[in-house]
């Protein structure tokens, strides 16, 4: 039974997505990073992973991309990172979107846990055949 592998791959992918959401939320106000620039929101890219046969489709994260949407510009002349006209470049993290993303990832994770638990129960039941 490949259900365990399939559900586990999806759970790994979803928890990676949760990690990225946590990074984005944590850095929603980071005006400066290691490279001196404001933080850019990250997004994971999911793709189907063949696990032997068309009926066994797992998931994997093929990459983490940077959100191409424009950075937020905030007028704060007293900020140390402000440019000549008094604007500070802030991360392009949308907190509302990230919260929605987090809920979606956590629900998908739960769905896969459920699938795995059901598969476990069925296997245990299979062992009782003939008893």
């Amino acid at each position, binding site marked *: 039974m490949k259900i365990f592998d399939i559900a586990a791959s999806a759970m790994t992918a979803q928890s990676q997505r949760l990690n990225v959401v946590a990074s984005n939320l944590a850095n929603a106000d980071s005006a400066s990073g290691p490279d001196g620039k404001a933080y850019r929101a990250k997004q994971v890219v999911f793709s189907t992973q063949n696990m032997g046969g068309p009926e066994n489709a797992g998931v994997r994260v093929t990459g983490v991309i940077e959100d191409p949407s424009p950075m937020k510009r905030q007028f704060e002349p007293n900020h140390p990172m402000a440019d000549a006209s008094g604007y500070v470049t802030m991360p392009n993290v949308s907190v509302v979107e990230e919260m929605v993303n987090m809920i979606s990832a956590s629900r998908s994770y739960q*769905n896969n846990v459920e*699938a795995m638990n059901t598969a476990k129960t069925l296997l245990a039941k299979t062992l009782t055949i003939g008893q």
Partner: protein
Amino acid sequence: MNKLDELLNYNHQALNLRSQRQQVLASNIANADTPGYKARDFDFQSALANAIAQPAAAQASGGAAPAPAPQPELLYRSVLQPSVDGNTVDMDVERAQFAENTLHYESNITMLTHHIRMMLAAIRG
């Protein structure tokens, strides 16, 4: 195929297909957020009819070794609410089918167990 095999064959084939279908549905649930993934499923009734017809045909042609069970034809689920990223997994449908398949799998096991008990009772007298 002897009488004992014949008795257990139906539930054996049905269990095999149920477990395969469980995998297909688990794949759908796993790929609920994958862009471009199309939900798959197969027609259980026709797949079971094929699987049961197969050993009988092999027996008729005189083949001693049991032929491998035919793979059910995987179809794409018709979609009611398509999403922008090309994914066609409808979680409500998948969860309902998953639960239904689980129940059928368990009932198959119960049936199989009862058949075995029945034969044991007949042997012991």
